[in-house]
């Protein structure tokens, strides 16, 4: 039996970042897949050992541009654990607000890209249009649209201005009807349902086998969430719930992310109301010898940071584990047995973030036989939607 290989990447219009998938196909069906990463390795853990504790927050923010708060969040949790200090209450609320606003913008970004892969460019344009108000809030708070630099060991770097609160609340409440629109667009559209429901299914067992985290796990009915399981910042002071869905397919992953948009908005609004006045940081004079761990539920799942201190000015060892590190390998389970036209959306469904993952990789590279290029794959996916749409109209 002749097996054909479809290479996706390393540079491919489907991907923002360089990574390489090798799909082994038999006719239309994917029978095997290789994943090769390492194109984004930038030696961050090593550089971190040469920076002071304050500078490291700026460095690790640049691990990833989409979830650029999740790494400082986990890192500052680790430092607070190492020091054994209690961060001022107001700083905890500010951290929570920044973390949740980021979840909203990250989920909208994913929703847009998923729409694009399915051939619904309208969803892409609308989702990114309504992501802009969130970036405006960030710009008002921190002065930058991304890479907010709000965190520092023992607190936050900037205070929120009470005069901005009415505007922030108004912007967020204005987004709720738009979220309803996306919910309607994804949940009630028969074509999107047909394209995504039961596609790329991960069962509960698969999730446990591959140790998936975040929305990828929650879409298979596994309710894990660091915010609830090991509360930090102000998550135990506000009222919210963990979203799960059954099914484990691409559709379930989209549903989980859309419903989380509401929860995150809810958390931010509660935090703005409940936030106490007071100091926003601690004056940390010196670092004891020791080690600390910090966790944060990033938009994609659990981020884990480990810091070892030898009492000096910079970390002796800094270890990072990003959520995509666990999630992307579940692609191997999800893609095999599906058709080539579904492969693009399944690969995208875990919301992979390669720049987060790649701090350590040794990979051997071979080139596959080139049969189709990336444009063809997106075209295949979009044609399938078109076909479904036409059949529905006829029926």
């Amino acid at each position: 039996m002749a097996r054909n290989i479809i290479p996706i990447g390393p540079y491919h219009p489907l991907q923002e970042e360089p990574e390489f998938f090798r799909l082994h196909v038999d006719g239309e069906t994917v029978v095997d897949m290789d994943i090769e990463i390492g194109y984004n390795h930038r030696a961050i853990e090593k550089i971190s050992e040469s920076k002071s504790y304050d500078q490291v927050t700026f460095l690790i923010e640049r691990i990833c541009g989409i979830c650029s708060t999740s790494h400082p969040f986990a890192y500052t949790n680790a430092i607070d654990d190492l020091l054994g200090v209690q961060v001022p209450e107001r700083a905890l609320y500010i951290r929570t607000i920044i973390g949740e606003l980021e979840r909203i913008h990250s989920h909208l970004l994913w929703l847009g890209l998923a729409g694009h892969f399915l051939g619904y460019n309208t969803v892409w344009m609308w989702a990114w249009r309504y992501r802009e108000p969130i970036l405006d809030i960030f710009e008002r708070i921190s002065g930058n649209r991304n890479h907010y630099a709000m965190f520092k060991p023992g607190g936050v770097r900037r205070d929120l201005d009470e005069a901005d609160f009415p505007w922030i609340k108004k912007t967020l409440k204005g987004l709720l009807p738009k979220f309803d629109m996306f919910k309607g667009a994804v949940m009630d559209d028969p074509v999107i349902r047909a394209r995504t429901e039961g596609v790329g299914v991960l069962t509960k067992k698969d999730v446990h086998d591959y140790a998936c985290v975040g929305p990828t796990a929650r879409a298979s009915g596994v309710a894990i969430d660091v915010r609830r399981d090991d509360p930090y910042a102000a998550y135990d002071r506000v009222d919210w719930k963990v979203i799960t869905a059954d099914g484990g397919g691409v559709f379930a992953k989209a549903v989980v992310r859309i419903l989380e948009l509401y929860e995150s908005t809810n958390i931010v609004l509660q935090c703005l109301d409940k936030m106490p006045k007071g100091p926003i940081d601690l004056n940390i004079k010196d670092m004891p010898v020791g080690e600390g761990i910090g966790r944060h539920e990033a938009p994609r799942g659990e981020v884990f940071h480990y810091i070892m201190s030898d009492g000096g000015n910079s970390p002796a060892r800094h270890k990072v584990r990003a959520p995509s590190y666990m999630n992307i390998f579940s692609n191997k389970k999800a893609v095999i047995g599906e058709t080539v036209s579904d492969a693009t959306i399944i690969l995208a469904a875990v919301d992979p973030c390669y720049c987060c993952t790649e701090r350590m990789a040794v990979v051997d590279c071979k080139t596959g036989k080139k049969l189709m290029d990336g444009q063809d794959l997106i075209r295949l996916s979009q044609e399938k939607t078109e076909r479904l749409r036409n059949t529905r109209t006829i029926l």
Partner: protein
Amino acid sequence: MSLKLKALTKSIWVYHLSTGSCNNCDIEILDLLTPRFDVERFGIILVGSIRHADAILVTGALNLKTIPRVKAIYDQAPKPCVIIAIGACSCGQGIFAKGYNTPEPVDSLLPVNIYIPGCPPKPEAMILGIVKLIQKLRGKK
């Protein structure tokens, strides 16, 4: 100024090349295409293949694994080809200058025409950079 280069300024088709970036410049580039900024008004469109491109938007600090691929992609590009370096990492090497995996800056490998610094540059800054580039190519001050 060659006729080819002048014709290119009418509608620049760009190819996005991430050489190991943090994704942030990359999403800001995609943001340019979405309704708030919408650079398609100016004939600027993101293409999927380097063989259709007039300009390459380079983001990220080059690393050991991407250097051979970036070279290969530049060799496949139809010439004349304009190189735009976006973000602190590709303009200099930014915070990654001392890393063991990022040996050289982008402009030692590719002939960069215009630098747009920032971490990440705002979409407005990118539009301004491209406007300046077009003026430069057309020989205007």
